């Protein structure tokens, strides 16, 4: 598998910003206040999301619109658990363009989507650090 192109903030830097990050009440509400569950759910997303983004990149390169639509739909669903309208909004747009077989538009949306995914991964990594510090 090709290495992914996302820049993930190194653990040290994430921990520094962790103190400034409080766990979003909306996220906690979603898991019924269960911090352990939230930790697990975020952990799974942090593991799976980079590969999903890489799949999208590959399908854009291959021009496989069906596979691209499925991957974009997966990302919409997965990221949708974390209150990020930026990522879900762009991922939905990507789905629509893929369904319409519009590769140029898909690529444009992806260019905007990728940095938002990075921001989300950083935020969630910091959230996990906060959860673990607090326990």
């Amino acid at each position: 598998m090709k290495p992914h192109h996302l820049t993930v903030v190194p653990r040290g830097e994430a921990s520094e910003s962790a103190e400034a990050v409080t766990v979003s009440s909306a996220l906690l509400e979603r898991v019924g206040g269960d911090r352990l569950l939230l930790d697990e759910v975020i952990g799974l997303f942090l593991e799976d999301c980079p590969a999903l983004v890489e799949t999208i990149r590959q399908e854009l390169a291959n021009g496989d619109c069906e596979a691209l639509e499925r991957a974009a739909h997966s990302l919409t669903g997965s990221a949708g658990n974390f209150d990020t309208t930026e990522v879900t909004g762009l991922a939905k747009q990507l789905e629509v363009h893929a369904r319409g077989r519009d590769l140029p538009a898909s690529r444009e949306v992806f260019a905007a989507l990728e940095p938002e995914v990075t921001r989300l991964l950083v935020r969630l990594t910091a959230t996990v650090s906060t959860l673990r510090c607090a326990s």
Partner: protein
Amino acid sequence: MRILIVEDDRATARLLSGLVASWGYEVSVVEDGKGAIEAFAGALSPQLVLLDWMLPDMDGLDVCRNIRAIGRDTPAHIILLTSRGTRIDVVAGLDAGADEYLVKPVDRDELRARLRAGERLIDLQQRLADRVLELESALASNRKLSGLLPICAYCHSIRDDSQYWHRVEEYVSEHADVTFSHGICPTCLPRVAREMAAESP
């Protein structure tokens, strides 16, 4: 109550299973359509299903149709989950056999309320199925006399469906929930008494 979660995204699957388990349900999770269909093969199949619209091997609609085709006395309550909430999708989902349709990300309180509503429906269906069994069993043991009975005008024997003649009391006790106690009526008493007197030495 047994609930099956059919979801290929691990984060979503973990979130749903964590919540649902905390509400007291027996949870199992599968990540594709094949796994979902296999879950209905055994005797203890799920009663509630949270089914993702898009799965790696088939779409949720096909999984729905397959589950419905298996057929159960008390069908599972299927809640279809999707990030797409267009009217066309709602209609397609319900037509494929889903009982409900929820748009992701699912609100926790709404999910819990809908699962409870699903449980009430399942309980109702189970009670109805039990009642039907009771009534069928009662009907089978409650044999009635009805229709046109061929009866001999002289000795009053009755002919059954297989063309055999039976004494009245034999026929009636076979076809109704009655037993006979043998006595003698006022008309026969004098005649029988005379016959017995004539026979005695």
